[in-house]
């Protein structure tokens, strides 16, 4: 790594810490430096974005509870905040792996009713694009939550109980959405 390229990467990372994405620096890295450096810059960007959106989602979920809104709606909105920027986007496997690993790392920091739905979009995209899901996702989610994520991939539907309602995550191919419904009584299941 040349000193100049190292300096570009350092400046890019410093800007990220200030919540600034310096696209010109990224372009310069791409055009002048070794591909591995661009990769490191993109990895840092993926980490920043994943943690940023999960943080936003958590503040929304927590704030909604404080404001007296129904937690199921707040939770579904929080899941959409984490999915939002990536919904419909096509990402290369490396970026998808980074995003899912860092999102899982960020999700594990907070007390959610369930963690796996927040990761659902990334694993669906990985499956559709035939990418591998990094081990870090399972490590951060825990074995039980990861098993529920795998079951969702398989069945195309997964349910989380939030207060008196059910938040259902439904998949149809690479499309994915959330439905909130009243909790079913045991005799209805």
């Amino acid at each position: 790594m040349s000193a100049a390229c190292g300096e570009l990467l350092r400046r890019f990372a410093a800007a990220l810490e200030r919540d600034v994405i310096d696209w010109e620096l990224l372009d310069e890295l791409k055009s002048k430096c070794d591909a591995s450096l661009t990769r490191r810059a993109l990895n840092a960007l993926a980490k920043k974005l994943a943690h940023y959106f999960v943080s936003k989602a958590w503040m929304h979920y927590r704030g909604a509870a404080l404001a007296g809104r129904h937690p199921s709606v707040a939770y579904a909105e929080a899941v959409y905040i984490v999915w939002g920027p990536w919904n419909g986007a096509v990402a290369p496997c490396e970026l998808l792996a980074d995003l899912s690993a860092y999102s899982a790392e960020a999700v594990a920091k907070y007390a959610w009713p369930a963690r796996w739905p927040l990761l659902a979009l990334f694993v669906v995209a990985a499956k559709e694009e035939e990418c591998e899901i990094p081990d870090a996702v399972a490590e951060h989610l825990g074995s039980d939550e990861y098993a529920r994520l795998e079951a969702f991939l398989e069945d195309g539907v997964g349910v989380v109980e939030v207060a008196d309602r059910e938040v259902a995550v439904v998949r149809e191919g690479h499309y994915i959405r959330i439905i909130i419904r009243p909790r079913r009584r045991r005799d209805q299941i």
Partner: protein
Amino acid sequence: MTCRELLQQFVTTLERDEPDWVLLRKLMRKCGAFGVEALKAMAKKAVQIAASKAWAVYRGALIAERDPAIAYGQAVHFVWHVGDWYGLPCSVLAEMAVYVAEAAVKYSWPARWPFLIPAAVAAEVNGCELPDSVAEALGADEYARLEAFLELGEAVAEVAPGVKVAFVRDGRYVSVVV
């Protein structure tokens, strides 16, 4: 024209809501401390405009019988976005915080302290201090609530009986939820 005269001229254009950017650049380039004074005047004007617009939105929404929580949340957002709080040096951050506090007390808000959240969080994260005049302008009770929010990372403002707006902090990020 002297730097003092340039500054006076710039302030006059600000008062007419027509800031003269060429003049500001000239002041910044040639006049040192006068340039800083011009920036402060600019910041003060920006805060006053944001607070005035925020109040108009809030008051208008109440008159139009819209949800007071949404209206108040929007008003707070207006003032929050007046500056890049983390990018400010401590001295300018302190000045901006005072302007926000002064602007907040001009109007009859359900709570004043939430307007100061980004300034207070940025001050804490950047290792700056907020001047005493912020507490003086807000009043002891409202300032105590701001401090409690900084400490706990979450708080609620009741904007009407039973209608709550929540404020949540996660490190350097803050959010308002209605």
